[in-house]
């Protein structure tokens, strides 16, 4: 079990956006908190009702606008509170994962996984591993600023 007591010293905070389903993974993150499982501080969690709500464009938007990482987590397949939301999400997110590198965005900045409300330790490992990976990758170079033409015109 990695990181139970040793949170790696972060040189600087990274911007990791988490999209967690309310029923399983948000609960799992709560469980990890209740159990005081130490985790890096880079993750900012957005609560969504279900990974089925997760439009891949939320992840794409985050990465395009400079998030250093995006982590999506939901109920284990077949365990969805809404029966099938995560099964749709799995296809959509997998497609996104394959698509990102084509556009020049490092797919390692995007991760999706399944963590149940009771899996506090698993959540700790997921967060720790992903945060470490993002720290290794460093800040997201991003898509960058506006084009030269518009700079010229004083915008």
């Amino acid at each position, binding site marked *: 079990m990695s990181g139970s007591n040793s949170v790696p010293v972060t040189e600087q905070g990274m911007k990791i956006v988490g999209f967690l389903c309310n029923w399983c993974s948000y609960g799992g993150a709560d469980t990890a908190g209740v159990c005081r499982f130490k985790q890096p501080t880079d993750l900012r969690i957005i609560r969504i009702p279900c990974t089925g709500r997760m439009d891949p464009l939320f992840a794409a938007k985050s990465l395009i606008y400079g998030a250093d990482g995006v982590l999506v987590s939901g109920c284990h397949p077949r365990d969805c509170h809404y029966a099938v939301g995560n099964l749709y999400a799995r296809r959509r997110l997998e497609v996104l994962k394959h698509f990102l590198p084509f556009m020049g965005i490092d797919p390692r900045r995007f991760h999706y996984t399944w963590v149940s409300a009771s899996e506090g330790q698993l959540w700790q490992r997921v967060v720790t591993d992903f945060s470490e990976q993002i720290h290794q990758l460093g800040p997201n170079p991003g898509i960058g600023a506006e084009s030269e*033409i518009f700079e*010229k015109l004083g915008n």
Partner: protein
Amino acid sequence: MSGKAFIPRDSLGAALDRLSKKIEVWVPAMSEEGRWGVEFLPYRPGMRPVLDRQSTLSPKRVVFPQMETLLRFEYIKDPDDPAKVKFRLDDGQEVKPQFVFGARPCDVRGFFTFDRVFTEGPFVDGYYRNRRASTLFATLVCGEGDAACFCSSVGSGPADQAGSDLWVTPVDGGYVVEALSERGREYVALLGDAPSELQEAAARKVQEEAAQQQVGDPDLVKSAPSFRGRFEDLDYWRSMVSQCLGCGVCTYVCPTCYCFTITDEGKDLKGERLRSWDSCMFAQYTSEASGHNPRPTKLERYRNRVGHKFSYFPEKYDGMIACCGCGRCIRSCPVSIDIRKVVQELKEKANACA
């Protein structure tokens, strides 16, 4: 200072290098090496201007950028009481002189439409006026029309000097440049030495030949008054518009289309007000806050586009047509809709009805 210069073809780069040290220069250049499209880009040393064909995008953006910050604003909070907020606004515009090298008569004529709307009252748009006033045009005498060109139809022509500050005539071995305005004259010497007699004569010949060219059907303009009569003829408009995809690319490449939208974009306590190009071919353009849309389908929108250019505008502005005959809308249209036909048939059908 003769007000004339000759730029040898292989020294064009050097001339533009000299010029761009004094003033921001825009030239037509390939947006991507090996592709067809040409757009006006800020000149950088080494760049190869494309002067042998019309640009895909007109130089509209030089004076009327695709996006322009009108003002910046900021909320300032009282550190002791977050409920107390002050507001600061900055609407300053920084405009530098700029020089467009290699525009064509139609490109320059396009700005006349803008000028009437933005600078001749009753409301004067300062942002446009300032940019317009600080922009010079070195215009090419046009020799490369194609099947889509129709500048003569709208009262212009390949040798139309109107609106230009310098006059660039391509001759064997280079370009003869002559000043047409006082502020244009300042830059002539920078571009090259005075031309020889022979070169001047060659230029004159090119200019004369260009002036004699008839590009497009001169009767086109006369169709405009028929518009009102056909306004309610929905069958006609339906047949004209059915091909249209409503893609709006015609308005983006058009030198005279000036539709815009204004939005406030902000984050946290700061923000800015932006003016961006919009298109009358889009539903959002006329979508009202209530949700009602007076031009709900492409029929109304397309009819408006034709009417605006060939009827409403000339009615309001002394007969001036809001079209410069550049033909870009025809060339860029993915389904090759020909606005000349639409306007011409306006009249033909009107005659037929009468």
